[in-house]
């Protein structure tokens, strides 16, 4: 429904209702996606703000035939990876990423072992090479089909599947190294 020509036209004109609508539809999803890359709520919010600014600055070149969410996810993945590159000096995976209590619930009741396990999983996903990480996040966080992932990352469907397969092997290897399997 949001890909109707009229809606896209209004979005290009940045009409209030269209902007509100698209934010309401996608902001949360994009924020979750960015969060999986940067592992920090504040940074994820920054990334998503940048995503929207880029989206609205370049919206004239947006072709209605490519679907809106594909386009938005593509910008989000690119911006997240850009953020990681920019902050690679201050953001080190060996530096024990502080895993934020994602649900916001008090984590006092979580055992040390549970926390360690979570850290290990975050570390495992973080350590993956860029493309593998992108595929895993789009697949696990956004539950997208390989064809959609392929379109977002501008790769073939087979390539997307292969990347996912390598990612799973790597994750298993990393968790094994942490004695978690």
């Amino acid at each position, binding site marked *: 429904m949001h890909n109707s020509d009229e809606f896209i036209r209004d979005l290009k004109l*940045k009409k209030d209702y269209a902007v509100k609508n698209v934010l309401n539809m996608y902001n949360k999803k994009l924020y979750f996606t960015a969060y999986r890359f940067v592992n920090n709520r504040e940074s994820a919010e920054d990334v998503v703000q940048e995503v929207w600014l880029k989206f609205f600055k370049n919206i004239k070149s947006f072709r209605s035939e490519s679907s809106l969410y594909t386009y938005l996810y593509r910008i989000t993945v690119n911006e997240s990876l850009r953020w990681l590159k920019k902050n690679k000096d201050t953001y080190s995976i060996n530096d024990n990423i502080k895993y934020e209590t994602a649900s916001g619930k008090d984590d006092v009741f979580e055992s040390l072992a549970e926390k360690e396990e979570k850290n290990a999983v975050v570390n495992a996903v973080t350590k993956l090479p860029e493309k593998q990480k992108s595929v895993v996040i789009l697949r696990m966080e956004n539950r997208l089909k390989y064809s959609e992932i392929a379109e977002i990352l501008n790769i073939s469907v087979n390539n997307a599947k292969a990347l996912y397969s390598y990612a799973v092997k790597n994750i298993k290897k990393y968790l094994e190294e942490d004695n978690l399997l």
Partner: protein
Amino acid sequence: MKCKQVQYFLPDYIDSGLDNEVMSEISLHLDRCDECKKEYQKYFNAMEKVKSYFEEKPLYNKSVEYKIFNNIADLKRRTLFDVLLKPVAALALAVMIVFTAVKIDYYVKKEKVRGMVENVLSLNSNVVDYIVVNNIEDINNLFIKKYTEGLLNEAEIEDALYNNIYSSLSLYLNIKLKNLSETDIKIIEDILPEYVNKYYDYVSENYEQIIL
């Protein structure tokens, strides 16, 4: 299917990403191969942990949407500025720069010409002589008229003397300064009255003395 092949396909098997035929072949193999079953279990456990990590969502701050909405509104205003006002502002600035440049250029030229004119027309006897010698009859007649007719036509007489001096100085400058451009002539027209006034005063005050 051999163990090596089965283990190669395990990640896809867990993701149910294989043909039905291959899926059931691997299932059969896992039922009877402990080693592969153990390996499968590891993959399964690993992906369960990843799944539960992804199921737990970070806190979402809805108010961020308003912040972004306002940013977009700013962007819209800026776009309007870019499209409508920026070109106008740029044009105005360009006009201003050109205008200022022309003005500065004119000012510089004017100072140069003024220097040239000052060299020639600074109050000196050569110029006075030139004025008087070339216009002796006219000046005589004017002063006679002034004295005979008195105050009656004073303004008219003063105008005539002024014009007389003006054309004398013009001619004198033309003789002394050569190759004047149109701009130079315009500038001279601008500053000449200052000199005409000086010589007018001088000639009026010293007429009798000069004539004598």
